């Protein structure tokens, strides 16, 4: 199978389906996940955050190669997944019941 991320981040390949280009898709994936799945993603990705930023910072933001772009999306997804793991202990925002708040404009990368 072709790799999704740069070779240095092969350990994150099992979580490649988090590397999606919109905040809405990342949030939807979070709410469709179990806490075990969110915890596993967080435990794998959080320790690599510093390495990923160091790697990505070698490129200008508008000149990221495809695999680097996907790595950036993966870590955008980490910010989304950090809330259930670090504070909520559940995938959804507590007491957010029927409310929704959807991205209608967001940056291309």
């Amino acid at each position, binding site marked *: 199978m072709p790799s999704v991320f740069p070779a240095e981040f092969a350990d994150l390949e099992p979580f490649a389906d988090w590397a999606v280009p919109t*905040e809405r898709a990342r*949030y939807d994936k979070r709410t469709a996940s179990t806490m075990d799945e969110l915890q596993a993603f967080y435990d794998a990705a959080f320790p690599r955050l510093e390495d990923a930023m160091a790697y*990505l910072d070698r490129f200008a*933001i508008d000149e990221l190669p495809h695999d680097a772009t996907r790595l950036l999306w993966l870590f955008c997804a980490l*910010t989304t997944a*950090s809330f259930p793991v670090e504070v909520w202990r559940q995938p959804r925002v507590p007491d*957010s019941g029927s409310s929704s708040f959807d991205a209608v*404009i*967001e940056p291309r990368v």
Partner: protein
Amino acid sequence: MPHFAKPGEGSWTQHYGIDTGPVSYEDSISPEHYELERDAIFRRTWLNVGRVEQLPRVGSYFTRELDAARTSVVVVRDPAGEVRAFHNMCRHRGNKLVWNDYPREETSGVCRQFTCKYHGWRYGLDGGLTFVQQESEFFDLDKSAYGLVPVRVDVWEGFIFVNLDDQDATPLSDYLGGLAAGIAGYPFDRMTQVHRYRAEVASNWKLFIDAFAEFYHAPVLHAKQSVDEESRKLQGYGFEALAYQIDGPHGMVSSWGGMSPPKDLSMVKPIERKLRSGLFGPWEAPDVGLHQLPPGLNPARHRAWGMDSFLFFPNFMVLIWKTSWVLTYHYWPTSHNTHIFEGTVYFAPPKNARERLQQELAVVTFKEYTLQDGNTLEATQTMLESRAVTEFPLNDQEILLRHLHATARRYVSEHRQRQTEAPVRISAAS
């Protein structure tokens, strides 16, 4: 014991001569009051509909659904480079002129002219009617008399406003007044990295403004968003503003900004420590060419200053953060107990992935908070409508709420007054 100084009168509310008694929320639950607000407020005030960056070149346009004002407008950059606005309506038989797929949804794009989907009438970017299908079938049709109906439009610091009242000649800058003048020159044009969120909220539009016009709720409703020890500390302190200002229908609150960066890293979550960002934005300000704050920011000149939040009546809020980023809120009513909320985050474009991730964390944190706020509003609206309780005590940190509701009621009563005084008009059309 207050942490920050209050005016000599002992409270902000009394300082601005605002009544301190319990408040009625009838203006937020009455369908009749809302119907009056549509004409008294939304058809008579300057409404922010976008920014100039949305119209980068000649022919760039966007539409805005102004349900409360009973119309849709199309805003366009004309061949002279000027921003124009028109009622989004074909002069032939009234079809909505610019829309895609769903007539009630907003759209944007670039075009050379507007063509009606119904019978192909065409209009130039200046609104002039340029083409009529089978023109010879019409009876003495003077095309020059059938241009798009213009809407007054003006721009303040890159923010585009429309005003549907063609009688009221108040210029935009006069309407926005001293609070806006005080932040003129802020580098809004440098903050072109935009994230916009939208929610349909089951509450009156003013109730969501209430939620963002006071921070008294923040240590409680959002308690779980902080680490436990910090959360207890915040609840113990409560919230006190550095300053409030009222100017005409508008108001502002100036707040401390203890979290950007936090005094103690153990106060914040692991992801915030690692990325150096959070609800208060990225901890390090980008260079946006801001050598000195405009005089209207941090009016108390307090060193703990973190953010100022301006409410430009009726439905436009601008939040300017110490670390050089901006949030705007818009509240577009769709009925007495529903509205569309838009939250837009503006950053300086990130130079690298690290800055992009810092911005993402600030944005998704804002989303988490707003999801909590939005749901609480529905809970408030339904109980207010029960009218089991009809008067509510508001504290001094809720001064902007008192002012907002009083202003809305004043616009409605002045409107009623004008209607009673106006002579009965007999239509000249025969």
